[in-house]
């Protein structure tokens, strides 16, 4: 060891400092440590030097910490982000639920959108003027209501296509009826929602052609079986128009009550499907542009109280249907061979109805009794007709019945779809 010493034997400041800083190794460290073990003076020197070093380190490090802390402005707002994030998450969840509910109710409206589309099998009595109203050019698409420009702009965005209704399957294909393709399906959905929130005025209703209002009914799409078809159709149209008016009034009252409570909340209970489809028909016919797609049988769940022409619906006989009528969960379909099939679960399972008529059945449709149309309408609001679930039992109703026509233009009637009697 080369350490110099003070007072004869003590290690010098160099050695003690190096020991305190742990810079000594091996023999030098052992020698200094051995001296420190027996020398209280040098132990005190080392302890004081160490204490001074620690105090100097604290003084040297402390100031930068003070200068950094006040500049960290975002740290002061750290707690504010927590409630902000919670509110944002709640808002996003609310919007998601709102959109989901809107899409969930969309299919009911979709039925009304697609049914009124004009058919190539429309009766020849339809005038060219009505044809023009029914099939407007793409450029003549109706403008959005001026009172809701933002809503219309939002609705023009592409949206997921809702599950199509089975009635849409009954509609003529795109090749049969060229439709303007300017409007997207979502647009129609939004318009229907708006129409529900703000029912069409009476003047607009008057301008709507009766065929458009009745467009979803089977007579508008059924095959003209004979010359007496027009007379029967005219009578049926009168009945249906009365029914539509009644249903629309009922819908308007229900919506007005709902709007008064929830504004334009689309999650409110839907009006009876019949009213929806009828009320939506005129405008939809001028806007229907969505190309029909192959629809699954489960789509029948959205259909109620409609009848129409035969569309490619596969029946248990292996043939496709030529005419369909429905009420609630019940469906009646006539295939190309003239066989009648009944489904009580919206088309999931089919049961063949025993032939109780002569000739070959060519058409089936739902009919409303003329004398009971206005009288039974209020009653059906809460009755079997007003509630699709209540129709599951197909309870006899004096106002509603099915009519079946054969190839000889003979008619049979039935209230339950199973028992048919000549008219």
């Amino acid at each position, binding site marked *: 060891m080369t350490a*110099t010493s003070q007072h004869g034997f003590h290690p010098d*400041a160099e050695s003690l400092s190096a020991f305190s800083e742990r810079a000594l190794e091996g023999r030098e460290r052992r020698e200094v*440590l051995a001296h420190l*073990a027996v020398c*209280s003076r040098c132990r005190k020197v080392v302890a*004081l030097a160490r*204490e001074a070093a620690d105090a100097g380190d604290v003084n040297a490090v402390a100031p930068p910490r003070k200068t950094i802390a006040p500049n960290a402005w975002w740290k002061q707002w750290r707690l504010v982000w927590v409630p902000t994030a919670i509110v944002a998450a709640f808002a996003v969840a609310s919007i998601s639920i709102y959109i989901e509910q809107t899409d969930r109710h969309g299919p009911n409206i979709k039925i009304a959108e697609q049914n009124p589309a004009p058919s190539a099998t429309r009766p020849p009595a339809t005038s060219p003027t009505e044809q023009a109203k029914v099939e407007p050019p793409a450029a003549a698409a109706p403008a959005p209501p001026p009172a809701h420009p933002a809503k219309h702009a939002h609705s023009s965005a592409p949206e997921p296509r809702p599950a199509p209704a089975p009635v849409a399957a009954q509609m003529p294909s795109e090749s049969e009826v060229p439709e303007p393709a300017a409007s997207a399906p979502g647009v129609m959905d939004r318009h229907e929602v708006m129409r529900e929130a703000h029912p069409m005025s009476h003047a607009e209703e008057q301008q709507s052609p009766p065929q458009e209002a009745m467009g979803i009914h089977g007579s508008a799409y059924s095959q003209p079986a004979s010359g007496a078809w027009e007379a029967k159709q005219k009578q049926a149209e009168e009945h249906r128009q009365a029914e539509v008016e009644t249903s629309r009034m009922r819908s308007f009252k229900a919506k007005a009550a709902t709007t008064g409570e929830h504004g334009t909340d689309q999650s409110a209970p839907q009006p009876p499907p019949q009213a929806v489809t009828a009320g939506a028909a005129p405008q939809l016919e001028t806007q229907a542009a969505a190309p029909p797609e192959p629809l699954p049988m489960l789509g029948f769940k959205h259909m109620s109280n409609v009848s129409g022409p035969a569309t490619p619906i596969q029946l248990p006989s292996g043939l496709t249907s030529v005419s369909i009528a429905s009420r609630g969960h019940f469906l009646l379909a006539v295939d190309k061979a003239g066989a009648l099939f009944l489904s009580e679960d919206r088309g999931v399972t089919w049961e063949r109805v025993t032939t109780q008529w002569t000739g070959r059945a060519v058409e089936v449709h739902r009919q409303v009794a003329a004398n009971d149309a206005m009288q039974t309408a209020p009653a059906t609001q809460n009755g079997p007709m007003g509630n699709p679930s209540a129709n599951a039992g197909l309870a006899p109703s004096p106002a509603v019945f099915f009519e079946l026509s054969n190839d000889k233009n003979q008619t049979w009637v039935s209230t339950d779809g199973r028992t048919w009697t000549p008219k």
Partner: protein
Amino acid sequence: MAPTESAASAAETGIPNGTGAPDCVPNCSLDRALAAELWQGCDATRWGLTRDEFEQILIDAGTAQNFGLAEAPEVKPATPKQQAAFFRGVRVADLALARACARGNERAWEHFIAVYRQPLIRAAIAITGRETLGRDLADQLYAELYGLNERDGQRRCPLLSYRGRGSLMGWLRTTLAQRHVDHYRRTRREEPIEDFDAPAPDPPPQTPARELSLLEQAIEQALSDREAEERYLLAAYYLDGQTLLEIGRVFGIHEATVSRRLHRAADQIRKQILKNLQRNGMSRQQAEEAMGADARDIEVNLKKLLQNSQSEAFQEQAAS
């Protein structure tokens, strides 16, 4: 204050005249590449040190410590690799600054004041525990460093004893602590006698004198057999009254580790004392009974014993 540098230490540094003039052995030389590398890392031009002066400082410091080698330079001069290994363990920048200040370089002094003046005062205040005493201590050391003290007509600068083993600031703190402890010990001896409260006479011992004598021998032997680090821990804790934290800072270990080592050392010393007593002719029962003797009956003054003890290394050094 008396000069702190002895003639022997000055001879070891290789600067006998105290002016910084080199007294290098003829065959010593510094590797040029190593000197260039150290010169660039030192940035000694800030305090006006020339390249030649810098190299001379390195040669002086290296030869004074023989570049860390055990053999004398006349027998086997250090190779460039050994020189590089030596200087990598030395604070070259601090060493150059200290030597430049010792040579009387004004720019070096300005730099020294700018860098170390305030830390020196803070360290002195921390050591003394009082600001006024601390400032006085710092000013006194500063005067010493500047070379106001003379010996045999030569200005003596304590910075010449700095060899760069530790940091220059650490050296300054340790030097301050030495000054403070020496001053405290000297002034304590000058306390007036009337303040001295004579202890009451000890009661007659209850343990037989022979057993007490054997116990004293066993204790001294047990303590002398312990490792230096254990003795340091025991002395610092039980004699100096240092805290576990203060002891831990010296060794760079946690205070809990210090506590465990203290307990282990005490247990081992107790066992060793029992063994020593049995070795001296006592039975185990007698030895345990002797261990239960009143400590006031034991003539062993551990503090006095340890303070008067000197380690072999420094005893040899003093003899040489």
